[in-house]
């Protein structure tokens, strides 16, 4: 065990006091003098041309300051450079029920709301597409004219020789899996406040400041600059406290742009906060997914080949769609050793709110299919579910067949741990009727090795400034959205400098103050911003040590920094209490407009005077306090600052084929879970009693935080497994509220036993990898497999609602009767099974393509097109 002072200790998140006392400020808590409220008019139709908007009656209403419509800001934007297909407000046409048509700015919310009813919009209805398999056959009335057949993107990847792999296998299973559409349901609804400073020369709106509930302040700054046609340097984005994102705030959400456009037109600050219904329309959640999965294995369970065809119902805009469909294929790799893979992925547009990134982005639904099918294969072969997984482990360090580099690999230990703790060997198959255990594994990236903005700049940079009294200010672009990144940064800096947490102040996610970090998504922050923080701290540490070495008359390498002290190696260790004195940090909450107040401390001056006096009297010494060392360094260099940045190494950036950019990561987290469930055979109701969740996060920098993330992932997975599903009727969302759409919370939680596995990654900060997403994907198949263990039915469609479970139980009873009559065939002998009619797409060309389809026009080259 390495001897750390604060790394690996469970510390309270440094912003928790503000949150638990209600003093912390979220975007909707902010207010400015003269602030107006914006309310958005949404489309009642799924697909229609806007013929005319008459807002004169709304504008005439007393208290209404402005009405904004599409032509006020028609520039297109989108989170991906390849998917700029959104406008602030609809231009010419609406594409889903809930699409943004106009925004009223008024002196109060109720007046704004009243005015919405006075806007007259004439629509001409167009045929609408709701089902992806219909939509991709569309000959006309495409949702975006530049996307023939309503196909946003399709990829066809072949790694190794899948056909040969199947030919060599002893058993092939092929099944169709369906996963319903789910949404993030973060506690905080989106909210944005935008304010222009009048330009002193012209009086026109000048610099813009936007406070927004975002995971990606720098992307927001960039998209605002595109839409408003302003230089980025004139735009400041500040992220206040954020009440959860889960991906729902990881791209620019319409209200963020609309608020700024409206503030410019109204010449006053404008705040917009979504209602819960609007949050559902903004969506960007996990798409409904159709997965045709085929796995071939040898008799001993070794996987020889995998083929997957994935169709995602992406909604009306690209959003992160291209990335999602690529992750679904790429993350077939890097968990197990699979020698041959074929992947056909289709991201399809439909007239529904756009899907985007959601916790476990791209991997969750395919993992549900894969882990369910692997379990079924194990059953058919008579191999234990844990054993079949062990037989397919990777042997890192390695590069997978689809070019993913794997180094640290805690999966074997995760499996061992959950098997042991759940009593798997003793209990599996020996439980009361209706009760069962299920096992499943998953993994996730610790950030993408290639950023979505194609550029060579580092993915994260951190600055540090140290005051004369030893106060350390860290400027990080990382967006704490509740996951605890501010605390992570503080811990890393404290560890490197050997100081207590209480000295550290975090200034975060303010584009004017903090160096660029591309955002809180794809679980990149601990790995990338953590590494940048580590390097910034080491950078400043070098300067402190250089100054201290002069004073101590030794070389910098001979000095130890710890317990807020510096001493010569070999001399007695001072009795510092650094690690024990973990304090809740004082932290500047938003608005973070005035950091100047933070610096310029008086104590520093006093300290300096007295120190100079002392120094004259003393000769070289064996030890000094952190403050003394800091003052020496500042005397030496004027200011004490450090900087550090992180860019993923070249050899982790994946292959050269089209679409290879998504999937590679500098490190992968690993998870294994066992779920214990009972199933009411009379009603199909499923109860999850306990989940054992082991997660390999490399090194747990803050174990309590890791546990929180794992437990949260289990709840979210459980919600998707058992009850969450967005239900549509002709493009209308039938459950746009938390009274109909329910995510499990602490109140519904089963017991979750988290087991932290530390594989210590060679490149992670102190060995850390991601902890927030990887666990989720294992929960759904673990529950599905446990249901099978309990009542012998395979649920291939999520969520496993009581009605679906009951239908499966009844079908099994019917089938059991049928089997008794037929007999004959020996079901234990390996042979090729085909279920769901065995759609033989993988040998053919895939679905029929339209002649205008760009993939078809460009022939083979574009098949993998990006």
């Amino acid at each position, binding site marked *: 065990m390495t001897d750390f002072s604060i790394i690996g200790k469970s510390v309270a998140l440094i912003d928790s006091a503000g949150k638990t006392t209600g003093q912390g400020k979220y975007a909707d808590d902010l207010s400015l003098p003269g602030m107006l409220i914006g309310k958005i008019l949404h489309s009642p139709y799924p697909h229609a041309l806007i013929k005319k908007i008459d807002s004169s009656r709304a504008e005439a209403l007393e208290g209404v300051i402005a009405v904004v419509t599409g032509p006020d800001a028609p520039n297109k934007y989108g989170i991906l450079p390849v998917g700029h297909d959104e406008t602030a407000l609809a231009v010419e046409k609406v594409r889903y029920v809930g699409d943004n048509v106009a925004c009223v700015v008024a002196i109060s919310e*109720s007046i704004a709301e009243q005015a919405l009813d006075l806007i007259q919009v004439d629509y001409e209805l167009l045929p609408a597409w709701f089902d992806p398999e219909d939509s991709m056959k569309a000959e006309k009335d495409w949702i975006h004219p530049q996307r023939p057949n309503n196909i946003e993107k399709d990829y066809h990847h072949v790694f190794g020789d899948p056909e040969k792999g199947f030919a060599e296998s002893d058993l092939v299973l092929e099944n169709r899996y369906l996963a319903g559409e789910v949404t993030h349901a973060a506690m905080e609804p989106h909210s944005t406040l935008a304010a222009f400073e009048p330009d002193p020369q012209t009086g026109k709106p000048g610099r813009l400041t936007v406070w927004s509930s975002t995971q990606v302040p720098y992307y927001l700054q960039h998209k605002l600059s595109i839409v408003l046609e302003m230089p980025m340097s004139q735009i400041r984005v500040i992220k206040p406290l954020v009440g959860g994102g889960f991906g729902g705030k990881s791209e620019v959400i319409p209200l963020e742009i609309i608020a700024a456009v409206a503030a410019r037109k109204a010449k006053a600050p404008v705040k917009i906060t979504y209602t819960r219904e609007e949050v559902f329309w903004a969506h960007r959640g996990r798409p409904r997914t159709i997965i045709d999965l085929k796995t071939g294995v040898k008799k001993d369970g070794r996987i020889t080949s995998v083929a997957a065809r994935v169709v995602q119902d992406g909604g009306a805009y690209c959003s992160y769609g291209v990335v999602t469909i690529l992750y679904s294929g790429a993350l077939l790799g890097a968990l197990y050793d699979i020698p041959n893979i074929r992947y056909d992925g289709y991201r399809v547009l439909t007239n529904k709110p756009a899907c985007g990134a959601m916790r476990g982005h791209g991997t969750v639904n395919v993992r549900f299919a894969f882990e369910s099918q692997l379990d079924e294969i194990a059953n058919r072969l008579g191999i234990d579910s844990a054993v079949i997984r062990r037989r397919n482990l990777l042997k890192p360090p390695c590069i997978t067949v689809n070019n993913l580099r794997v180094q640290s690999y805690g999966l074997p230990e995760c499996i061992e741990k959950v098997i042991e703790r759940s009593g798997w060997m003793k209990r599996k198959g020996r439980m009361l009727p209706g009760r069962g255990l299920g096992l499943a594994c998953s993994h996730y990236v610790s950030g993408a090795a290639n950023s979505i903005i194609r550029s060579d700049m580092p993915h994260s940079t951190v600055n540090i400034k140290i005051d004369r009294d030893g106060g350390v200010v860290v400027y990080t672009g990382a967006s704490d959205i509740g996951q605890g990144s501010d605390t992570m940064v503080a811990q890393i800096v404290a560890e490197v400098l050997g100081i207590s947490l209480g000295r550290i102040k975090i200034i975060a996610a303010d584009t004017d103050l903090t160096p660029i970090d591309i955002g809180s998504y794809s679980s990149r922050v601990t790995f990338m911003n953590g590494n940048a923080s580590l390097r910034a701290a080491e950078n400043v540490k070098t300067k402190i040590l250089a100054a201290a070495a002069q004073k101590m008359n030794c070389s910098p390498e001979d000095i130890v920094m710890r317990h807020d002290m510096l001493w010569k190696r070999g001399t007695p260790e001072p009795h510092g209490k650094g690690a024990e004195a973990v304090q809740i940090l004082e932290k500047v909450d938003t608005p973070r407009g005035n950091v100047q107040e933070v610096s310029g401390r008086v104590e520093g001056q006093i300290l300096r005077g007295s120190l100079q006096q002392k120094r004259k009297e003393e000769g070289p010494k064996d030890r000094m306090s952190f403050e003394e060392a800091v003052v020496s360094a500042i005397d030496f260099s004027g200011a004490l600052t450090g900087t550090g940045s992180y860019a993923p190494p070249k050899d982790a950036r994946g292959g050269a084929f089209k679409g290879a950019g998504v999937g590679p990561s500098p490190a992968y987290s690993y998870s294994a879970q066992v779920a214990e469930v009972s199933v009411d055979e009379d009603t199909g109701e499923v109860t999850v009693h306990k989940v054992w969740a082991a997660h390999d996060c490399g090194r747990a920098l803050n174990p309590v935080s890791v546990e929180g993330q794992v437990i949260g992932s289990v709840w979210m997975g459980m919600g998707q497994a058992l009850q969450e599903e967005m*239900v549509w009727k002709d493009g209308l969302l039938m459950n746009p509220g938390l009274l*109909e759409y329910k995510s499990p919370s602490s109140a519904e939680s089963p017991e979750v036993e988290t087991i932290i596995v530390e594989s210590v990654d060679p490149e992670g900060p102190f060995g850390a990898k991601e902890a927030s997403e990887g666990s989720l994907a294992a929960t759904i198949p673990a529950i599905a497999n446990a249901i099978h263990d309990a009542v012998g039915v395979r649920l291939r469609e999520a969520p496993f609602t009581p009605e679906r479970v009951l239908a499966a139980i009844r079908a099994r009873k019917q089938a059991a009767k049928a089997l008794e009559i037929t007999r004959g065939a020996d079901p234990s002998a390996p042979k090729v099974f085909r279920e769901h009619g065995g759609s033989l797409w993988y040998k053919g060309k895939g679905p029929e393509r339209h002649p205008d389809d760009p993939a078809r026009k460009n022939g083979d080259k574009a098949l993998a097109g990006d």
Partner: protein
Amino acid sequence: MIPTQFEYVAAKSLDEALSLLGKHKDDAKLLAGGHSLIPAMKLRLAQPQVLIDISRIKDLSYIREEKGQVRIGSMTTHYQIESSDLLRRICPLLPETATHLGDVQVRNKGTIGGSLAHSDPAADWPAAVLALDAEIVVAGPKGERAIKADKFFVDLLTTALEQGEILREVRFNTPQGTVGQSYVKVRHPASGFAVVGVAVNLSVNGGKCQSAGVGITGVAPKAYRASGVEKALQGNALDAKTLSVAAAHASDGVDANTDLFASGEYRRHLAEVYTRRALGTAVSRAK
């Protein structure tokens, strides 16, 4: 969403409330706990111009037993019923039903009268008052009248209450002899309302069913008495077979609801399974 503008008046007595209601007629809505009305107003499904708050009228909040009858004032909260020692002793069905209702906040504010007057097809109280064969006493401009529970619920969100009337009291005969009661419920995972809720009130003599009250909510547009189940029990020995046969009648003659959570067919199935279970529990408690 936020509600449209409205005026608010707190009535101090039943008479004052009646006269305010007479004055504002359809423009007004009575406000009890507000836990059904306010959500409806926020969605603008209800847009009253005047709210007459009757929840502060002391005389409408009580639980007592008099002359063989239990009487509960309409503004009695769910929590008051849940925690009533008197009811736990003489009619545990009601406290048990209350524990299934919403969460602590809802139980602290919501009232039995508000719930019955609202007649939500998935509300819990209607099942219980039906099983108890209760009477609903309403006060109106022309005086009082008592309505049998099975005549009170008319349709989805519709009751026998007429314009200008206020639900004043729920009353029923104190259960006598060897009594077995139970309430079982399949909660909707999000709203917590009943997908199916079954209330049973049995009186048993020598192992045989002397009388049976079975109220079912969540299944149909309104809560109903499962008379087919009751008949199949009457006079029979309460063994597993009888209960199964009886439970099969749980949704006889009913037009079952279909929603996102459960199809009509599945609801019928749940009604049967949960009626069987509710009966089983009630029988086991009849000692």
